[in-house]
């Protein structure tokens, strides 16, 4: 019985028709595609994207205390923290900060060790540029965010 059934199933291409049925059903179902540059993907809150050096929202002063922890933990050693000791307050003051996104692993270790939440990986993920040198982010760009106008086309904004 089951043999004849199997034989009939083979003759009438039941296996193939079943597959065709699956694909036919999908022809009219909704599509899954996100049209990327038009529709921006909703990224998770924790997304580890472009770095940002946070300022204190009230005072506008940088939150960075130049403790160098991020530079120490970074597996690729791509963070350079420059600091100076303020002669008056004997406190360390951030002078410059560079972040080389070309080598970044986006592992997030820097933001984890940061005691003041100064360095943070944001949800900005559009990091492509036309030159290697522009992948080296200085303090200004880290604080203000990335201005893509410098590439002539404000496409992603």
């Amino acid at each position, binding site marked *: 019985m089951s043999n004849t059934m199997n034989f009939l199933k083979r003759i009438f291409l039941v296996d193939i028709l079943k597959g065709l049925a699956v694909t036919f059903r999908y022809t009219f179902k909704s599509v899954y595609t996100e049209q990327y540059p038009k529709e921006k993907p909703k990224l998770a809150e924790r997304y580890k994207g472009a770095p940002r050096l946070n300022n204190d929202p009230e005072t506008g002063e940088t939150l960075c205390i130049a403790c*160098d922890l991020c530079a*120490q933990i970074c597996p690729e050693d791509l963070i350079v923290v420059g600091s100076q000791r303020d002669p008056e307050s004997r406190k360390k003051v951030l*002078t410059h900060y560079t972040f080389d996104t070309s080598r970044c692993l986006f592992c997030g270790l820097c933001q984890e060790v940061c005691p003041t939440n100064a360095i943070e990986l944001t949800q900005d993920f559009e990091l492509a540029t036309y030159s290697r040198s522009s992948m080296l982010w200085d303090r200004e760009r880290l604080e203000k965010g990335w201005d893509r106008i410098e590439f002539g086309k404000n496409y992603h904004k």
Partner: protein
Amino acid sequence: MSKEDKTQPPSESGGEKSQESDSPESQPSSQAGESQEKKAKSSAKPAEAAKSAKTAKPSSSAAAKEKTDKPPAKPARPAKKKAPTYEDLVDDPLLESLQKKFSEGILSGQSFLDQATYTISLEVLHDVLLHLRDDADSDYDYLIDLTALDYLGDEKRFCVVYHLYSHQKKTLIRLRCAVAEGESVPSATSVWRTADWMEREVFDLFGIDFSGHPDLKRILLPDDWHGYPLRKDYDIKLQDQVWIKEHLQIRKTPE
């Protein structure tokens, strides 16, 4: 990172560091404890690393440093505060049978974190492997892994490590065998087919010769590469510059 920093012993940074060298001088930043560890460690390399590694060898368990900064994970649980150490195997049937058969060849049998380690001399290595595979009592039919360690500065510099598993007994053991530079290790390809690429990898990265291997040549690195990267005296930055210049056409290579 400032220029002064760059003159310091090899840190992990790659060559792209040079991009940053034009950045303004920075004050030596405050060193977190961890980073001090790291820098100190890398400066001491490779000699100190080798020394401390030597102490890690199974023969001397006393040298294992007592850790003080390690808090118990959970106070409620019976805390394993003491750091694990090498312990001599007692009443181990495998060790006994091996010692019976190869008496002098079996140098020691120890365990670390319940993983048994047998140290074997090079002379009997091949026979031991064959015995372990074929003997009905052991039946280690599966070579999990074959690798090597480089204890630079030791008399017998290299240590070839085998991890074996018995599907029947469901046990895992580790074999260690010290090898001096220039000595060749009998190939295990005839014992386990899977040793083929593992030995080629060890040859490629450590430069240990395996006698009797059917096709011993570089596997991960290009055939005309110079040096053996996983040796402790092979600096991560001082790789084969000639090859890189020639094949990758990178003009500016790390110093």
